[in-house]
């Protein structure tokens, strides 16, 4: 492996010893390794570094690993994510897999198993990458989404609604994707903040409410009697349609 194609791996793990040990071993395998000690810095480093693979713990300070995973999956379906967690029950694994994790390893793990899984995940991605060169941009699964009279286009970041064409901001698109992925399931303000914004302590839950007000203005026939973006008392918001 030459330097030009040295793969970048981001480890999101709050235990310094484990993170350091993983870094040591992955570095010895020839990878460039970065460590994030909590959820928010994990999300931040993922954006800044654009790593080839993420090793993710579930029990993390500030934002848990599952929320980090969901947040990443809103923007990137493909980046391989390997969960390494003390939560090794089948239920935990199913939860992780249902939110789109590629592989799941329970702590305590065997070093060789860990290294081989990482290697395999990275090999698979390199195949996709080569494919991409041949048929450019086949990735976005659903480019448009319609509900009622509204039609959202995720490639052009626009929405066709009763008041005409609206240009959506990055944050609005992300939040819409989150609502669509969780259609029919209530989302708490806290979860919306964590997944949608990557939770910064300065952002209040009021921010979420402001976005909902905007969505209702765009997509509801009567913003005061919402049909699609409903409030659920003391829980949060629910997106649903027929």
């Amino acid at each position, binding site marked *: 492996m030459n330097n030009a194609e040295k793969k970048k791996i981001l480890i999101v793990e709050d*235990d310094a*010893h*484990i993170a*350091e*040990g*993983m870094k*040591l*071993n992955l570095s*010895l395998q020839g990878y460039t390794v970065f460590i994030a000690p909590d*959820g928010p810095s994990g999300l931040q480093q993922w954006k800044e570094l654009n790593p080839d693979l993420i090793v993710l713990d*579930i*029990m*993390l*300070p*500030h*934002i*848990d*690993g*599952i929320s980090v995973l969901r947040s990443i999956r809103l923007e990137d379906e493909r980046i391989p994510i390997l969960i390494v967690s*003390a*939560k090794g029950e089948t239920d935990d694994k199913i939860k992780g897999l249902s939110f789109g994790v590629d592989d799941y390893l329970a*702590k*305590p*793990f*065997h*070093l*060789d198993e860990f290294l081989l899984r990482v290697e395999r995940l990275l090999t698979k991605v390199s195949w996709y990458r080569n494919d991409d060169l041949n048929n450019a941009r086949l990735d976005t699964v659903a480019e448009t989404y319609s509900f009622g009279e509204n039609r959202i286009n995720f490639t052009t970041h626009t929405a066709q609604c009763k008041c005409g064409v609206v240009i959506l901001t990055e944050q609005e698109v992300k939040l819409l994707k989150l609502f669509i992925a969780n259609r029919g399931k209530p989302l708490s303000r806290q979860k919306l903040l964590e997944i949608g914004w990557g939770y910064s302590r300065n952002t209040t839950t009021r921010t979420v409410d402001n976005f909902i007000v905007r969505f209702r203005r765009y997509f509801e026939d009567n913003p005061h009697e919402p049909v699609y973006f409903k409030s659920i008392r003391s829980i949060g918001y629910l997106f649903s349609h027929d």
Partner: protein
Amino acid sequence: MIDRTKWFFHPIFIFIFSIVALATSLVLYIYWYVEVSTGLETMVRKFNLDTSQIFTPQTWVVIMILSILVGIILAGIFIIFVYNQKLVQLYRMQHNFINNFTHELKTPVTSLHLYLETFQKHELPRDDQLKYIRFMIQDVNRLADNTGRILNLARVESRNYEGKFVTSDLVTIVEQFCNDNDHLFRNCAITIHNPSDRSFPYRINPLLFEMLIMNLLTNAIKYNESDIPAVDITFLPQRRSLYINFEDNGIGIDKSEIKKVFRKFYQVGLSDNMTAKGSGIGLYLVQNIAKIHKGTVNARSKGVGQGSIFTVVLPFKPEKKQ
């Protein structure tokens, strides 16, 4: 377990339903009894039978006996209901404990495992080896601490602890503790204030009392997001008590949680919230140790993000002044 069952299996519903059923049956018993006996009475009158032969039992006696029996059944249902709720609570406690403690135990084991396998696989330079061996020693200590906490809990609960009670000055004990353990509180500001500038001799079990200080201080630092975690320990003698305040600049406690934090295996936040850390033993231990020393402990906080104050209150007579 409970969440998945249907609403009509919910214990509160069953409880209310059986009470309603019981009350209805009591009313019906009485109603039918009265109806039958009036019917009988008119028949007796009609045929002019000897009333004393048929109407030996009094209506009110029957009603009273029925009510008493129903009352006993009701009490029985209530007791079963209360036990059931206790059981559910215990189940939750156990669930919390396993959830939290799995993490606490698995993390050091994972780390040890990782480094041992690394050593087996690679020949590392001596300096690196030493660094990672220090990590491993710390991990072993973490494991020992965790197992020790469980064992201490069992000992404190059964009042079967080692060591004797000796009279010593509390200020000195706390000062000495902070000096001995300063490696644990690096990058933290722990200050001891003794405005009255006197000594507080008190009969303590040194091992247990150190455990109490340790738990309060590590909590103050663990649940802290300030750049420099600070704890101010203040000794305040007041009338017949000595107040020892542990005031921190940590994450604070929500009003609704203040009382609950002392519960066994309790953790602030939902049990399935995966950011929760810790075993839920610390403050429960603190409370029990305070009790063993004839004192109490309470918590105050202005709210989330505004720090908290834990106060140990010990009975202290100023007459003993030296």
